[in-house]
């Protein structure tokens, strides 16, 4: 079983990102639980979402305190929220940022991957210029870094699962998949 925690801000599509992942994994016959931090969301406020992924039925039903990997949808959360809490050594930190993994100074025990999901979202006009929706780009990068699902399955899930701009969201995910930088 792999446990993942997503960190974003209200309005970036963090919850939808975990739902798309749930759909894609389900299409491949795997088991997944995807759920938001249970609360009342506000735009711009830090939010979290969780996913458990397994080849067999998943029994534990509570929040994830010791994730195998984390995904950060907004680089401004670094230093603002205790993102690494409980992260297991050897786990991936996937960050939406313009910077390279080596420039982020995360502890050496973690592997770091970066992708400029904001740039990709803006390029495909996902969300607004002030508030781009980076979720589909970040799940595209996710599929490369943590290979639990085939890219093609994920792209189909995105195309059928997003409320608007299916082709653009698909292209954004594919571009992020191909441009993510992995170190570790």
């Amino acid at each position, binding site marked *: 079983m792999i446990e993942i925690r997503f960190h974003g801000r209200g309005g970036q599509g963090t919850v939808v990102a975990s739902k798309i992942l*749930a759909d894609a994994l389900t299409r491949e*016959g795997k*088991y997944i639980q995807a*759920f938001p931090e249970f609360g009342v969301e506000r735009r711009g406020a830090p939010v979290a979402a969780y996913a458990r992924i397994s080849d067999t039925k998943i029994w534990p*039903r*509570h929040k994830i305190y010791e994730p195998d990997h984390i995904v950060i949808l907004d680089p401004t959360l670094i230093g603002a929220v205790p993102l690494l809490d409980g992260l297991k050594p050897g786990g991936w930190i996937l960050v939406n940022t313009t910077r390279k993994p080596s420039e982020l100074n995360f502890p050496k025990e973690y592997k770091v991957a970066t992708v400029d999901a904001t740039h990709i979202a803006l390029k495909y006009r996902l969300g607004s210029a002030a508030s781009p929706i980076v979720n589909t780009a970040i799940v595209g990068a996710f599929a490369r870094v943590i290979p639990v699902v085939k890219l093609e399955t994920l792209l189909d899930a995105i195309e059928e699962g997003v409320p608007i701009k299916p082709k653009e969201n698909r292209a954004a995910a594919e571009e992020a998949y191909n441009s993510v930088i992995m170190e570790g």
Partner: protein
Amino acid sequence: MKRMAIVGNHALSYGALLSRVQVIAAYPITPQTQVVELLSEMCADGTLKAEFVKVESEHSAMAAVMGASASGARAFTATSSQGLALMHEVLHWVTGARLPVVMGNINRAFGPPWSIWTEQTDSLSQRDTGWMQIYAQDNQEVLDSVILAYKVSEQVLLPTMVVLDAFFLSHTSEPVEIPDQEKVDEFLPPYENKYILNPDDPHAFGGLTNPEWYMELRYKIHKAHEQSLDLIEKEGKEFEKMFGRYYGLVDPYKVDDAEIILVAISTAASTARYAVDLLREKGKKVGLLRIRVFRPFPYQKVKDILSNAKKVIVLDRNLSPGAGGIVASEVRGALANVKNHPPVFSYIMGLGGRDITTKHIMELFEEVEKMDEGKDIIWKGVKL
């Protein structure tokens, strides 16, 4: 059959769709809103051929489905917490009128202070209304239980509440097999009731009944519950033949040689199953008894399974202030007439949606291993 990732709320909606409900009346409340959102979309686009009645409160929602059921329609509603409390008067009426209404309830703690998070006090405090109550532990069980609820309810003429945890099921996406409509039709025939409101054949229902006859009618309601004990298991087996999944009154796990058995309902039981596996790996003789059907209460099953344990833990994510855990109270009652029954350790935890983790549940087993005499109430994790 189609496998889809859906939230627990939508599992309720799909259960209602596949049961071909004819009338839906509901009022939105967090965390139930998605249930009726999807059903109203299904009604609007013609996927579901049902009358969707908009109402101004939950009291009216229950009154509307009561009227629909009394006129011979298969009726559905869903609510949560304060909404369920507002339905309370009509819940009794639906049972007394012997109407097989099915509803979903998403467990949410009562205010004040306001909370939107899970605990079972809302539905458990409706336990004496005569509704059958099913507590699900995953989204597949939520969907399947709606279909099974109609199947049993319409045979014994009692209403059923399908209950699920706020967020841990209601807002969690996970794979669910959506059964084929033809197979559900084969399993669940259309609702037929001889005693319906019909202007062409007028009868009066529920009029003043003097003390000479009231008790007999209550006796019949109780007998219908007793009859359901067997029927739920029988229909569970029929369901398994068609869909490959079995649901009974209780769901025992590794209890045969267990020295300590933990009793729980809902998603806490799912987490407990994982905890039991981890403790078994360490050589601990522990087991789990998930109670799936709380009304009718499966006294005999509970007695049979728990009698041989050395100790019994009951995990209650609910509270009857002044008494304690509501499930624990039933478990103690079930064991009272068993000679030399095991001591019961009653834990209160996770109120208002506070997380119940695998680690917490492993701690319960470890704590109880060191205790000899049963405890009427133990507060786990309360800040004093």
